[in-house]
């Protein structure tokens, strides 16, 4: 299982990487643009990401825009529903507007920083992701 993380903060990136590495192979990007590029690359290689974690507050291209672009890229390529990525937004802002927008734009989940590890893992369970047996 392939996971894509987009997060500009090093510690948060590291945390997510470590946490999500328990679930699968994680690729880490440091800004929105890079995330899109990597995502596109995966589509082109047909090596799809199952899970994408996007930080909303990122410089240049913010998470919401990245989310929309990813969904558009998937649309354009007519990726079937099962192969489309599950996208979870993360943010330090606890603002309903953004939560609503991200859901409208096609995200599957939302996590407020600092991330409540237990809660986050519950959400992942619900989305059908399971920790790898170690």
């Amino acid at each position, binding site marked *: 299982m392939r996971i894509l993380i987009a997060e500009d903060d090093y510690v948060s990136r590291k945390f997510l990487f470590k946490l999500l590495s328990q679930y699968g192979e994680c690729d880490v990007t440091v800004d929105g643009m890079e995330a899109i590029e990597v995502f596109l690359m995966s589509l082109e290689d047909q090596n799809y990401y199952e899970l994408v974690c996007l930080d909303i507050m990122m410089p240049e291209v913010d998470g919401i825009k990245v989310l929309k672009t990813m969904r558009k890229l998937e649309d354009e390529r007519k990726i079937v529903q099962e192969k489309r990525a599950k996208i979870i937004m993360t943010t330090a*802002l606890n603002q309903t507007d953004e939560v609503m927008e991200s859901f409208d734009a096609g995200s599957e989940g939302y996590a407020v*920083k600092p991330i409540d590890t237990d809660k986050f893992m519950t959400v992942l369970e619900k989305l059908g992701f399971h920790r790898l047996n170690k």
Partner: protein
Amino acid sequence: MNSKLPLILYSFSRDNHLPKDLEKHIDQMGFKVVSKHYTFQAWLDLEDDTKVALIKGHVGACVAILILGIPSMDIINALGIVNCVKYILVNRSQLSEMIVAMDEGSSVQTFYKETHIFYDNQETLLFKNLEGLYKHYMHDPLQIYRPEIETGTETGIGIGTGTETETDEWLLDQDFMVNTLGALGDGVIVSDFSGRIQYINQAARVICTYYAPTNKTSFEDLFHILSPIHHYTEIFIPDRVYKEQKNFGLSRDTMLLDQDGKMKYISASVSPLVVGKKGLMGFVVAFRDVSRLREAEKRLHLYSEAIRQSLESLVITDSEFKVLSANLKFVETFKCNRDKLIGSSIFELASLSDALKTDEIRRDLLEHTAVRRQITIEVEDKKLHFRLMVNAILEGEVIYYLMTFVDFTKQRDAEIQLQRERENLQTIFEGLPLGVLILDQDRKIVRANKSIDLMFDIKSETIIGKGQGNALHCVKLADPHDLCRNQGSCVGCRIDQLVDRALVYNQGITGEDIEMSVFTKTGSVEKKWFRVSVVPFDFEGVRAVMMVLEDITETKAIANNLIENEMRLRLITDNMIDTVTQINLKSEIIYASPSHWNLLGYTPDSLIGTSLFDFIHPDDRERTMERMKRRLSTHENFVTELRMMRKDGTYIWLEAIGNVLVNARGEISIVYVSRDVTIKRQALDEMQLAKDAAEAANKAKSEFLANMSHEIRTPMNGIIGMTNLTLMTELNMDQRENLVLVKSSAENLLKIINSILDFSKIEAGKIILESHPFNLRQTLNKALNPFKIEAKQKGLDFDVEVDSQITPVIKGDSNRLIQVVNNLVGNALKFTHKGGITLRVTKIGVKHDTSFIRFEVIDTGIGIAKEHHHKLFESFSQVDGSMTRRYGGTGLGLTITKQLIEIQGGKIDFTSALGQGTTFIFEIPFQEVDQYVQIAESTPNVPKAHRKLRVLLVEDDLVNQTLAIRLLEKQGHDITLAQNGHEALQVVGTQEFDIVLMDIQMPLMDGIEATSQIRNLVQYKHLPIVALTAHAIKGDQERFLGAGMDGYISKPIQIDQFFSVINELTSEVLSVQQLVDQVSEGDMVEALTLDEFDEYIEELKIQIDKLLEVVKLLRYQQAEEIGHFIKNLATTAGDKEIKKRAMRLEMTARKESPAQLLSSYEELKQAVVALERGRS
């Protein structure tokens, strides 16, 4: 004079008194006194025979007898002369009456009736009467004389017939005839037709004044007549006689020219003369001089006319007051019928019956010869006033009365009017509120009115005859006890001077204010001011002076006060530091105090007439003007601060107090008192600045904190996350315990940070309230579950009671509500160690569709001491410092709670007792959502639009138009409708749109054509255009997209699809599209030149070498950097393969896995090598 009529005069006056010049007058009247007899007694003494003989002796020698002093006709009758003389003139009762009798067959009585009575005690009247009589009887001389002449003529004929002699001198031989004719009073001329005169008697000679022998003249020369009928041409009598052969009379006005050349009226008749056998021999003219009669007649006529037309009402009655005649005026005045009047008693006349009493008149007439009285008669509702005179006229034994009514109504009215005016003037004079004195030439008071009494406290009647100074108790100014020493002695007395002017120079003066000191009854001296007018005028025909005095002492005092006040105020305004400015309603300055110079640098004069607003700072003008206007309507004072321009152009701050001033004429002005408050203002401004700065700083701090949220949470994320991760690994007991502490500390820190951030957000106004429907019960349960667990763990009861009356779904901000509930319940749990906690929710009221819901959080905890109640909701305060240590918390919880409740429109309060527990009560209004709306809201049909869109709908079908418009309106978009492609193009050219919904099949221009044309317009390259189409066949979509459309909506419209397509294309569509374009732009990069390619390869090789070093040393970060660099390099070169591998390397470097990094490196290196190989 031969022509005079002989008259015998008898006087019966007792004193033998005869009027002066009687005889002369008689002579003038044409009579000649032939005999005089004086005294009645003398006459009576005569024997009757003697009397008769005496009178008869005169018969033939006289025509008139004038009898003076005879009262009764009886005496005249007794005289036996009536048949003997032609006239008897009787004077009765001291020349008061004349009676004329005539002898010619008519009785005295007859004559008597026709006599007009004139009476007057003046002797001259006698002569007038004589004249009148003369006239009267000359009125118709022919009538008087004709019978005699006719008789004479007949006689003549008779004579002729009776004497049949044949002598030539047939006439003259007969002595009898001659004697007879000679004795006649009338002239007789006998002539033949040749004009030879046969005979002239003595009378004819007298009339014609011809005394020469008969044969010396001809008939024509002698009887020279003029006839008025023939225009005074001569009439040839002989011819007429010859022709007519009968008697005829000459016309009435025939005149004869006598030998002296005098014209005389004559009465003449001509008879043919037939002498026996000789037949018609000639003619006889008998005539008499009637000149005097004619004159008298004329005069009489005039008198009669005068009476008839007299302006006085005249009536003549008999002795019984039966009206005999009345003149025109009488008839008119008394409005009576003349016919009825004649013969009826004057006293029976309706209008006179009351005013005239028969008895009184009769009685008076017995005592006096004439009655005079004033009577008032009402004629046709008008009161007329008459002077009535009744005179008795005695005609023999018969008495007549002449009544004369002289109307003096107008005169009387005028008199009454005059009397009234006089009374009015008197009333005015007395009632005048001004004192009036009238001084005569000697400056003594002759009249004074009542006002003088009041004004000077004197009795006006006591001052008559005094000089005005003394009268009015004027005190000489120099010495209060020295009374005015009479007129003129006071040197420089102004009143005196004025009186002088009036008296001497006849000049008046009006309204001069003069001060007088007046000695009052109480002995004190009062100074009084008078407005004095002195006017010269005629007082009862003598030059006098009217002095009018008006007491203006009070007015003067008021005026003086006013002047004094004015001066005082002037003094104040002129010397004050503050400025006083008065402006009119046009804002023009009408007064400016001198202080303007000091304060603003303007001289007051230069300000007058200028507009106040010209000096006010432009920023303050409108405000000041507005304030001024508003206060004008209320007339209240107002205070304002404004900047005024000094003369040097700088502005100073003034505090101005404006007063609305309304003067006596109703003119409104505004008076400003202004004070320099520049220093105060500067201080205020500085304070304001400081305050603003402080507030801004506070806000900036809050904003900073709010914005810090992200920055603070991010490291917390790391701390908590990493701790959790580590706790997932295998650890020894110590390590685990340590980490658990780290975790709990971090969580506490997070709570504190959250509180501070929340608080800051509220402070910064960054909380945005939301409103969405939610199920209250469910929401509460969900939120309270963790607390229930916690309560259970603590061994506490936890109850939630929700009022069943509350509608399940309400609208509001559920998140904020939960935050509040969490806070309060959390607190309750924290401070409660036994007992329990209850959350009670009740509906307390509904207003319109808003229900007020009360939440009570009741605990049985430690409670709050009374002394701490007041600071419970304050920021950063906890009841007790030790609390924090014991219970934790920031002390912001309740503050935030309170503020959250308040921004939701609610309020919070609490009750608490130490050791017994606390109850927090808050109320928040929520909108009630009814069942229908709840369903509607729950349907996902109309999602919320991100923003308001300007939509161009191009659609020709009405049904589709309507549906599309309805749906778009639900999202609140602006819709412009075009019926076809043409219209769409036109509209697009003039308006901007966010999206176009384009029908494909349309008349004129279809959707695909329209779209490509729109795309040709440069500015619409990225305008989203959505196809609306029923073409659901696969492949159509490509056709639409190929034509430049961005999406399509199939018909019939599926609501979900409709909105999602629009939403997709309008929400950040451009940037997302750009991003998509950007990530695939590598394809579009132009091919590199060979040199460039070589360069690129070289650079890659260098980087690969560098990378190798880094990878060997496992320097992940550097490896990532180099990977990134290579990626960018490849992107620029359009080398997708290298870019991909560089990216992989970048990512594996981040994973910090040595094996993966190495493999990524190898892949990249291989690619570079392959590339290099490919080149060569």
